[in-house]
């Protein structure tokens, strides 16, 4: 028998769980588990009312353990730990049992089976909880300084945003000058402001701020430590290379994107007159009163959209939409028409994604004479050089009922998308998570949109996914608030669920330190011998070392061997 006093709450999750799991049956099955003194069900355990009920139960029933069987701990682990804390129960005596993602949603065809599985999972949760110890978070003082990697528009704005809040910034730019892509732009949509001027404005501000240090030709080469106190090493290449080591509380990654570079022959790329959108924008920027290509006046322009985006076939296709290009394409057309109202412009598109207020740009392009032709995904336009030496684009236009149209062109503009920037060195150093599309991944696009799985390392701008300039700036400022909320507090609390080595048992075979992906295992002297020791601030609690130790000297707090064994026993117990 257990002398524990555990409360168990099983969630309906509206119907997400209860549609497939007999929640009441689970409750009845676990009610009689040793140590369980409260067993209840609730429509939404995460709702404020149920949280209040739990708090009352914990206080009134003197509970010393809490189990909620609901969704993934990714969603609500912290919610319920917070509940425990508010009720005066050590939050590490809480166990979240995932009966949604790992049970109801996966067994929608088998109510009885799902219910049985849920019973076993909750029993295991109760068993784990019965062996929990109160733990205290590891408190680390934070360094009120942020490393911003990349001084494009996002990085620059983030640096200023942090400085505004009294946080020092180290801004490291790989190239020789700050400003990134935007520094090269002339007029940008939708406000027709000049990219160069925007960057100049921001760089001037950065230079005026005493608490921002900008390094160009600089790269992050090493990182250690953890959230609140990272040790970073930056190599600055110049006339002579120097390395700067410093401590920062958090890191914001704003490394931007690469432009898509068409393959040779892709929509005629390589033929004289077939250019990418950035190349065409350069032509526009340099045009005086006439738009010229190779000295010849441009009278006919054909735009082909989704080049390097929304590709479903081929090797390593870019399946994603690059978001900015439709808007940029129609903006270029408006600009062209303003330079030469007589210019003929043809846009070959799949879907025009001039979302939100950018629809107005699309409208303006049409008013100024642009013609839009929709092609089928499976029948892309063909760009050739005709016998007359002129470019010729052939396309089947769905908007005129599949009519085959031949368009002579002086310039064919391939509206190219964004690509994830090649940055493997940085990915290695920061252990940045990379998504399927090759861009850096946030933890959750809505709950934690600028955070990565590496605590204290944030992402913003187009390194996270295609964004236009203003959107990159918004996300940069969001990253500022995320950083500042940690650093302005002065300390962070880290999970105490980490490995601990029993020095008495350790024989320093070094198996553990070789297995540690975080280099968290150090050495210390203990009663005349050298033993392995876990650096609390660095250990992530992945548990990789624990099973490898030949002497069983390593235990993972919160998931001790004893807990794991009791959970397994509980899961295998006969269902009554």
């Amino acid at each position: 028998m257990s002398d524990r006093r555990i409360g168990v709450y099983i969630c309906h999750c509206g119907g997400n769980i209860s549609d497939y799991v007999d929640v009441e049956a689970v409750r009845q099955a676990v009610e009689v588990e040793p140590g369980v003194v409260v067993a209840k069900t609730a429509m939404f355990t995460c709702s404020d009312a149920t949280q209040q009920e739990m708090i009352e139960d914990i206080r009134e029933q003197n509970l010393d353990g809490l189990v909620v069987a609901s969704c993934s701990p990714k969603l609500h682990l912290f919610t319920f730990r917070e509940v425990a804390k508010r009720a005066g129960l050590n939050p590490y005596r809480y166990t979240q049992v995932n009966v949604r993602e790992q049970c109801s949603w996966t067994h929608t065809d088998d109510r009885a089976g799902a219910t049985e599985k849920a019973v076993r999972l909750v029993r295991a949760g109760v068993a784990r909880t019965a062996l929990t110890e109160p733990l205290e978070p590891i408190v680390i003082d934070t360094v009120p300084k942020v490393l911003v990697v990349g001084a494009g528009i996002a990085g620059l704005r983030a640096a200023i945003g942090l400085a505004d809040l009294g946080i020092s910034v180290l801004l490291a730019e790989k190239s020789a000058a700050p400003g990134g892509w935007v520094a090269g732009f002339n007029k940008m949509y939708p406000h027709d402001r000049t990219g160069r001027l925007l960057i100049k404005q921001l760089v001037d501000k950065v230079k005026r701020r005493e608490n921002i240090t900008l390094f160009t030709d600089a790269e992050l080469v090493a990182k250690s430590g953890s959230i609140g106190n990272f040790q970073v090493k930056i190599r600055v290449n110049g006339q002579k290379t120097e390395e700067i080591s410093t401590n920062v509380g958090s890191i914001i990654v704003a490394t931007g994107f690469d432009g898509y570079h068409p393959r040779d022959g892709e929509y005629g790329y390589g033929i004289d007159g077939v250019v990418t959108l950035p190349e065409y924008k350069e032509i526009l920027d340099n045009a005086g009163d006439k738009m010229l290509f190779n000295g010849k006046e441009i009278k006919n322009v054909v735009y082909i959209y989704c080049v390097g985006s929304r590709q479903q076939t081929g090797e390593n296709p870019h399946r994603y939409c690059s978001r900015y290009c439709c808007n940029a394409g129609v903006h270029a057309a408006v600009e062209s028409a303003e330079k030469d109202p007589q210019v003929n412009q043809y846009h070959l598109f799949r879907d025009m994604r001039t979302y939100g207020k950018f629809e107005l740009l699309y409208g303006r392009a049409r008013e100024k004479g642009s013609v839009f032709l929709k092609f089928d995904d499976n029948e892309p336009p063909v760009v050739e050089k005709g016998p007359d030496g002129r470019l010729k684009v052939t396309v089947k236009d769905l908007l005129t009922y599949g009519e085959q149209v031949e368009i002579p062109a002086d310039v064919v503009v391939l509206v190219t998308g964004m690509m994830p920037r090649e940055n493997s060195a940085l990915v290695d150093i920061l252990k940045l998570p990379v998504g399927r599309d090759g861009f850096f991944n946030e933890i959750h696009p809505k709950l934690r949109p600028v955070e990565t799985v590496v605590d204290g390392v944030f992402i913003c701008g187009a390194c996270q996914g295609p964004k236009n300039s203003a959107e990159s700036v918004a996300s940069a400022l969001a990253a500022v608030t995320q950083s500042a909320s940690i650093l302005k507090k002065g300390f962070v609390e880290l999970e105490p669920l980490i490995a601990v080595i029993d020095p008495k048992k350790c024989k320093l075979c070094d198996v553990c330190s070789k297995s540690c992906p975080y280099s968290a295992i150090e050495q210390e002297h203990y009663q005349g011998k050298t033993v392995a020791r876990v650096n609390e601030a660095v250990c992530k609690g992945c548990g990789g070392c624990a099973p490898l130790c030949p002497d069983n000297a390593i235990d993972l707090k919160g998931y001790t061997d004893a807990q794991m064994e009791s959970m397994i026993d509980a899961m295998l117990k006969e269902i009554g």
Partner: protein
Amino acid sequence: MNYDVLVVGSGIGGMESALKLGDMGYKVLVVEKEPSVGGKMILLSKVFPTLDCASCISTPKMAATTHHPNIDVLVYSEVEQIKRGQDGQFIVKVRKKPTFINQTLCTGCRQCEMTCNVAVPDQYNSDMVARRAAFIAFPQAVPKKAVIERAGTSPCSFTCPAGIKAHGYVALVRSGKYKEAFDLILETTPVIGSLGRACYAPCEGECTRGDLEGSLPIRKLKRFVADTRYRENAGPDGKPVAAPSGKKVAVVGSGPAGLTAAMHLARKGHRVKIFEAAARPGGMLRLAIPSYRLPKDVVDRDIRNVTDLGVEIQTGVRVENPAALKDKGFDAVFLATGTAGTRRLRVAGEDLAGVVSALDFLRDVNLDKEISFKDKTVVVIGGGNVAIDSARVAVRLGAQKVIVQYRRSRDEMPAHDWEIAGAEQEGVEFRYLSAPQKFIGKNGKLTEIECVKMELGKPDSSGRRKPVPVKGSAYRMPADVVITAVGLTPDTGCLAGTLELNQNGTIAANPETMQTSVPYIFAGGDVVSGPSMIVNAVGQGKRAAFFIDRYLNGEDLAGVAFEEKLPVVDKQTVINRQQSYRNLAPVPGREILKPGVSDFTEVEPPLTEEEARYSAGRCLDCGVCSECHQCIAACPADAIDMSMREETREVEVSSVIVSTGFKLFDAHLKPRYGYGKFKNVITGMEMDRLLAPTRPYNTVLRPYDGKVPDNIAFVLCTGSRDCTVDNPLCSRVCCMYSVKHNQLIMGALPLADVTVYYIDIRAFSKGYEEFYRQAGAMGANFVKGRVAKIDEKADGNLILHYEDIDNGGQLQKAEHDLVVLATGLLPNTEVFKLFSGEKLAADDFSYVKEVDEDINPGQTSIDGVFVAGTASGAKDIPDSILHAGSAAAQAAAYVERIRMSK
């Protein structure tokens, strides 16, 4: 209270801004107009492209916002005004709407909701189902506290001079809670059966249904309630009385005012004794109203509601000197002696035998004196209700001929129309524009009346045209009996020395407190107001009791509000709440009237239970809450407080974030799609509700017939990219929420076909293109082509006319059994009204203008004011969240700048 930042609106953008600011250590005030934080996102099913439950994403943020140590949240509150003060700070006026439930005491148990008898469209379920007037917004509401929606006082209840909660008992009858209805009326007055028969029912005149097919029979419903209760329960019915106060009150007169006052005083624990001059109690109820209108056993039963409380009634006692009652140990006196006197005609021969006053005549009949008018001609003189009553009684006493003589015309007759009509049908004759000059008799006994014809001259002081005798028009009319009914007067001559009287003989009493010139003597009813209606007397009795109780407790009388009602609801507003109403004809009134009727059987038949329920069901719930008071009894926490009123408070903040969100496009504005007309055409938000975990039907059903749809169409760009509705903008989210619906429907209804009619699929953000592809791979059919119009078939299915662009551009028709209009987003322009002094600039489409979007997204035209989320333009949730972070960063920077400058 001062804050660093005010956040207006607690949708996802507002919550995100507040949380980020709170986490950074700034003090934040969030003001939300709904009773829960969460905005529109919490109402969604799942959210794209991750298909997370909207609840799962929202609830942690909602809980975190409300529990955050640096954030205060005011829900059910509205920002009235934001104005910059002298020192650059913003002065913010916040109006806290009354919830009528003490939010500290409320436990969210929903007992009030379960017991509430009013159902109104549930705005949190797109009006597809009903919610109660007492309600918790939705299951995941934070805070999970109930509120009572009160739009004001319903016109019926507002107009009742007695303050009877007419709407309340109607709502209770609708729910079949007859006893509760009875008890509710009993809270005001004991004379329920009497009012149910003889009230002139001003409530019915105000009934909003009256502007449609006809008023509710509110009076008859009261009679139904009383009859049902009296039939089922012999009594006693009294509410438990308070502990004895040790005080004694004398009530003089046992009419409606006296009885009502006695009941209220007895409930307060005072010992009450009623003195009645007549042989039996009831005042005018018993003595004046004929029993074919009000049977006397009903009056008896009504009186028992008072005597059951321990009130003693002594009949046959005429109190000449109320002041003397003080010496007999009464601490207070309530005079409610009515108008027992009759005005004389001042016509020669008035003392002849055969000439009687109406009141004497009716009293004699009502006290069962044997009277027969067999073969007699009876002339009733007067045009009021008493005259008509007398005439109709005369018919029943066997008179050969009954004539009502009135000096004006029918239009000016003060009697109720229905009474005159009833009299006519029973054979009473009317002589209009005729007046007696002289009563002529033989042997002291009346034989003839000398009359003169009248004509109407100039209006007199009463506004009615004054009758003037026509010269030379005198004529004689034979008569055996004359009943004079030309007015009642209070019989207060004996009081002249004790109390201050008015010129017309009524007692002068303070109209607020009913106190007379002698502090311990209060007066009410007709003796104060002059001849009036029962329900007015009831009102004065209740009012007097309230102040007598205060007087007895030694409390102040002056300046104390008695029965403060919320303002009356505007009827047109009520009618405008719904596009249309089902035609519900009133139950026809059908009194049993026959010429020469000779018995006193009640003429008005009761409503059957079915008729009563049907009639009550016609109520439009004008005030929303009916004040039926059931929740007050049901609430285990005693948290209901109907006296709560709105409060305005002022706070000072350094910076403001407006995150007031968006409005959904009203699909009615696109009539060619038939929304509102074709039941199976719904909006995207409605589909989200149908799919949400807290969905109204627990499955996806089409509204027309509850059928599970199996061929669903989505019409994209409804109200977006559409100059015909003045919105050329793209709404950014509709493509993706439709794609989300596609996937959820294919999960919920695996056999259903899903077709999406689109212009461009705008799957532009991270993971969206993949999400769109996934819907296609799951079987959603994407058809490029805008839908031109929708027709409805007899079976409720819909025919969509569209241009099939992918296949040669032919005009095509397709049949679907449910159509979802992917309605777009529009600006919420209310935000611009908040600012005073400085103008918050709007962009060309009435969104909040971002003045420097390239560098400072979220910065507005007012220094220190920022915008977060969709208030500045349509955005999806991830973009709103990032935008909110941006607003928070700038608001924080602004606050820092302010601090530095100080």
